[in-house]
Structure formats: structure tokens, C-alpha cells
């Protein structure tokens, strides 16, 4: 029954979206997201997926169109990268404030300029506070599985929030990896057809997208924040149910050799795979190194995170985006503030690395480790800049 095949990760993503039986797909091509949209349009053209594929004229319209279709009760999907996300920005915030449970795959790529088609996280960090649930996945299987999981979470009537699945451009999206496919009936069992709580239809007059006077605006924002925080247990539930069905269990933070670790790397996305190799090599040399992969970025899993790093002396947080003129990488800064009120807290070293497709090797991680443990690292550094 279970079928393991090798395929490009983008195609695994498209395959999963097809299995979600989405109703509307609207997207605009941008490297490295293109293969996903191309494949989805083929599915529709060949009758393998009964959906409206709308080849919009821009990303702004891609997301706007999905807002319309989702508001009318259709399971909707879009995907983009980098400049496409930047163009969508305005609507990204509106989507979450309207509580529309759609799913977007964001194939991470750096933001111009200079123009770069390569991978980092500057695109997603530009919408850090957009109010979507944000996940980072790191291999083909996780991409595939999270299509179902994301809709399951989003459409839960206790949640009703949009979800972004982040995965790294090229270094993941264009890899050929093995993935265990799921049978459509198993997916159906996990993800039943979408039952909108509210939908635009003449059977019921409904006003969506009102404007908020000062007397209600703060309350609306508080409610939105509470909704995002309250989604946390439902995210865990969706992962648990998927684990029971597939045998693959996911958690907000994934730990590798952290239990007795003195120095822990913190990563998002596929960089965790190489960092893991570095941790193994360090362990062989007798160093107490560990690795923590942050799978859930919003809502930030503070408790699970603090639990996981208990006892650590140093955290080396790898950020793949610069917060210009700020106190450190966006992830590191957040972790610092999360730990500030803890009595016992580790040193947090913010390392910016892997910008615009720059490789970060096992040796690089070892070097970061050495400088931190030798007390030579500064609190914030753009790592590996050539002189």
C-alpha cells in the first residue's frame, strides 16, 4: 500500500497539493517555485485534478484571487518565492486578518537587491508579523506531508487561519529525493472536504472586510493575536493525527543530541541537515554539541523551545536574513527576548550565514562552534564574509 518513489521535491509538493483535492489554484511563476505551478497546471489540464487553475497576471492578484475563492468557500492554494511574496505583502496581512484558511507554499529565496535567485530566508522574514501560521520543513517527505497537515490545521474551525509552508529554494526544491506517497483514500480520511464556517453566497448576506474605527481596531488585533496563539494545541493535534496515520511524527522543535548538550545550534529549514553532520563530527571529538530545528515559527513555541535548550550554555542561532541596523538576526533576536526573563539563560550567538545561496559547510559549523566555545565569538556576526 505504501509507495516510495524518487522525485524532485517540487513535484512531490505538487503531488501532495493534488491529493488535497484543492478547488482553486492561482499562482504566478518565479524561480525557484515554478516547477510546482507548472506541475499543478498539468494536473488540471490532464483532468487529474478537478480544480480551477487561474494563471493570474501577478502575485498580488494570485493571493487576492485566492482570498476571493477562499471567501466563497473553495479550498485554495498559491505558492511563490521572494519578489512574488514581496508583491503580495499587502494581501498577506489581510488574508490572516480575515481568517481565511488557505495554504501557501513559500519556496524561500533571497529578496533583491542585488537580484539573486538563490536561497535564504529574507523573503519570509519580511512577513514575520503577518499573522499566518508559519512552518519550516526540511526534506521532501516533510514538504509532502505538510500539505495535508497545513490544510488540516488551517480549516479546523478552532483555528481558521492561513498557513505558510516554508522550504528552501534549490537546495531542497530542486533536489531529487525519495518520498513515501499516500493513497488518496488515506488522505481523504485525514483531510475531509473543506467545510467553510462562513462563505460568500446569496443564500446568506454577509459582509467581509469591514473597516475598523479606533474604537474596535485594538480589540480586533488582540483577537487576532489570541487566535494565532490558540492555534498551538490544534497544530499539535494535527501532527499527532498524521503521526498515527503515517508513522511520521512531527513536533514544533526537533531535537538532535540536545539532552546533555552544552552548545546547541538552532536552525530553520534544510540547513539543519548539514548542521546535524557537524554535530555528529563534534560529538566524535568529544564535544557536547546539539542541534535544534525550529519547525514551527509562528506561533512561536516558547515552552517547547525553552524545555529543549534547558541546561545549554550556548546557543548558536543561524539566521539566513539580516535585520539591517538591528540587534542581530531575526530568529536570534526573538530567542534572546524569549529567554530574557529566565533566571538561567544561555549565551545567544547570532550568526548570519547562507545568504543568497552561499553554502555553509560542516567545517563552517565547526568553526562557529570553536569560536563560541573558546569565548572568541561576538554576540552578532555575519559569518564568513570575505575580506
Amino acid at each position: 500500500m505504501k509507495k516510495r518513489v524518487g522525485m524532485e521535491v517540487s513535484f512531490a509538493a505538487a503531488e501532495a497539493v493534488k491529493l488535497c483535492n484543492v478547488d482553486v489554484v492561482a499562482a504566478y511563476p518565479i524561480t525557484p517555485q515554478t516547477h510546482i505551478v507548472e506541475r499543478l497546471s498539468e494536473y488540471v489540464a490532464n483532468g487529474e485534478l478537478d480544480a480551477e487553475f487561474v494563471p493570474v497576471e501577478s502575485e498580488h492578484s494570485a493571493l487576492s484571487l485566492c482570498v476571493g475563492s477562499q471567501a466563497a468557500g473553495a479550498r485554495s492554494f498559491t505558492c511563490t518565492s521572494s519578489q512574488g511574496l514581496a508583491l503580495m505583502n499587502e494581501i498577506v496581512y489581510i488574508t490572516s486578518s480575515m481568517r481565511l484558511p488557505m495554504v501557501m507554499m513559500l519556496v524561500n529565496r533571497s529578496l533583491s537587491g542585488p537580484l539573486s535567485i538563490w536561497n535564504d530566508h529574507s523573503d519570509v522574514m519580511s512577513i514575520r508579523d503577518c499573522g499566518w501560521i508559519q512552518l519550516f520543513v526540511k526534506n521532501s517527505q516533510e514538504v509532502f506531508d505538510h500539505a495535508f497537515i497545513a490544510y488540516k490545521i488551517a480549516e479546523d474551525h478552532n483555528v481558521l487561519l492561513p498557513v505558510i509552508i516554508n522550504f528552501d529554494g534549490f537546495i531542497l526544491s530542486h533536489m531529487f529525493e525519495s518520498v513515501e506517497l499516500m493513497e488518496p483514500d488515506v488522505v481523504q480520511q485525514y483531510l475531509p472536504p473543506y467545510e467553510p464556517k462562513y462563505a460568500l453566497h446569496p443564500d446568506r448576506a454577509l459582509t467581509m472586510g469591514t473597516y475598523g474605527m479606533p474604537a474596535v481596531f485594538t480589540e480586533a488585533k488582540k483577537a487576532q493575536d489570541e487566535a494565532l496563539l490558540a492555534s498551538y494545541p490544534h497544530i499539535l493535534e494535527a501532527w499527532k493525527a498524521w503521526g498515527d496515520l503515517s508513522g511520521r511524527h512531527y513536533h514544533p522543535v526537533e531535537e538532535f543530541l540536545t539532552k546533555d548538550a552544552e552548545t546547541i545550534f538552532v536552525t530553520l529549514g534544510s540547513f539543519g541537515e548539514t548542521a546535524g553532520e557537524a554535530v555528529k563530527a563534534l560529538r566524535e571529538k568529544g564535544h557536547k554539541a546539539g542541534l535544534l530545528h525550529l519547525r514551527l515559527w509562528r506561533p512561536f513555541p516558547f515552552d517547547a523551545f525553552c524545555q529543549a535548550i534547558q541546561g545549554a550554555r550556548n546557543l548558536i542561532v543561524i539566521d539566513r536574513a539580516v535585520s539591517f541596523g538591528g540587534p542581530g538576526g531575526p530568529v536570534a533576536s526573538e530567542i534572546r527576548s524569549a529567554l530574557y526573563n529566565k533566571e538561567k539563560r544561555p549565551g545567544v550567538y547570532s550568526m548570519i550565514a547562507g545568504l543568497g545561496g552561499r553554502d555553509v559547510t560542516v567545517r563552517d559549523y565547526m568553526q562557529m562552534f570553536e569560536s563560541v566555545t573558546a569565548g572568541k565569538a561576538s554576540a552578532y556576526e555575519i559569518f564568513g564574509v570575505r575580506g
Partner: protein
Amino acid sequence: MNDANVYAVKTLTKKEYFAPGHRSCLGCGEALAVRLVHKALGRNVITASATGCMEIVSSPFPLTSWEIPWIHVAFENAAAVAGGIEAALKVLQRKGKISDKKVSVVAMAGDGGTVDIGLQALSGAMERGHKFLYVCYDNEAYMNTGVQRSSATPFGAHTTTSPAGTVVPGQVTWKKNMPEIAVAHKIPYVATATPSYPLDLVNKIKKGIAADGPAYVHILSVCPTGWGIASEETIKFGRLAVQTGFFPLYEVENGKYKITVDFEELMPLEQYLLPQRRFRHLAEDTLGYIRGRVAEQWEELQKRSAE
């Protein structure tokens, strides 16, 4: 089409879908147009609105003037949102997830939300052939933000960003011809209208929504506040705009032009322009220039509808 006028009167509902109690200015021609359009559309409709006066006056949470399903998302994307609604209805009906009752999809925006910032989304939606009606409520400036010029502001008009100064006489560009841009997309139905000719307007909305593909109706919506006229003169100025040839009423059905409110002779343009505060600074040479271009436009339209 005289019969259609009779037909329109008889079938126009007493029901208000754009309910009274909204917050538009006194004598707002745009609110009047919205009201008439939705009477013509009836209840089986979903409307997607752009940001602008009509959105602001009708939807301050927790109030709403809308007796139909209505959504506002942003300023420049009403056409894309409407396209999404249309796509959703199509696929959900095909899959049997909702009833197959016929539902009309409408996008509405001001001139700014249409001819400027929303032009790309509108062009995309028309080109893709979504079956929907796009209604532009043209009050010839960005009224919601305080009467700034748009590319639909007429030549010579004073606005807060095309001020009539000692050197520059107000707006220095000619009004962008949006209906012609819509026609260039080869969509089945394009028309101009104004609430001062309500039956003509209602007919056009009904034709637009019945068209087999995208339809575009451009409605001149008199704005007493922005134009500087008395609030009880809205209807009069809408009529004058048509009678002077400044805003001709016509339709283009599958490429075929027809002037729907025709005149043997046009009224003098000054009667329309000079009583309005936004035009009162116009010097004779500017007036002469406007007169020339309006006459040219009218002739061109006459020629096309004779074809």
C-alpha cells in the same frame, strides 16, 4: 431598446440591497449609482469592492449597508477578488458542493481603483475571461483621500494634487479612456452610464450581467463634495455631462457601438463646466481646447455607432 426601458421600470425592485443609513455625503452620486446598480442586479449576486468612498461609507464595523454578500479586500484588487469568487462558484458547482443556482459576480471600484492602481488586475481578469461584471464608479478623483487627481480626472480640473495655480491650470492630462481600454480586451459588453439616466443605467447593468463573459460598465458618479456643486444638483450635473457630450452614454456589444442617449445637437460645454468649483478658473484658451477635444470625441463616437 425603448421596450427595454419599459421593461426596466416594471422589474426594478423596491427592495434596497444597498441600505439607507450609510455615511456618504449629501447628494452623493456614487451612492445613488451603487443603489441603482444593486437594484438592477437583484439578490443573487456577490460583490467584491475596492477601497474608496463607497467601501468606507458602507462598512464601518460592526455596521454594514449591504443586504447581499459583499467583500472588501484592498484598493487595487477588486477584479482579482471577483475572479476568485467566480472561480470558486464554478468549481464548487461543478463538484456539486453548492447548489447550481445562478449567482452573478460583480466587482466595484472608484476611478482610482480602476483606471490607476487597479488597472493591471482588471486587465488580467478581463483577459482571462472570468464571467463577471466590473462596475467603475467614476467621480473623477480620489475622493476618499481628499480629492486628489486620478488619470480619470478631466483636463483642467482643480484637485488637491492638480491645483489650479498661476502657472499650471489644474489637471494637464486628458481623461484616460477606460471604456476603450475595456473594448480593446474584446469582451462581450462595455458601456457608460450615469444615475441621471437611471433606466439607461439599469438596462446596461442587466445586459452586462447577462453577457457571456466579462462586462465593464463605467458610471459617471457626480460628487458634490469634490466637484464643488450644491448637493441638490447631482442629477442636473449628471445630465449636463451627457447633454454637452462631455460624457457620452453608449454601449459596445460584441464590438458593436451604439450611442444610447443621442442628441441632434449638444449643449454648450460651459453650462456644464463653469458652475463647478473645480473648473471655475478655466481661461478661454483652456475651454477652447476642451471644446475641441470633446467635439472630436463625439464625432468619433457617432462614426463608430453608424458603422
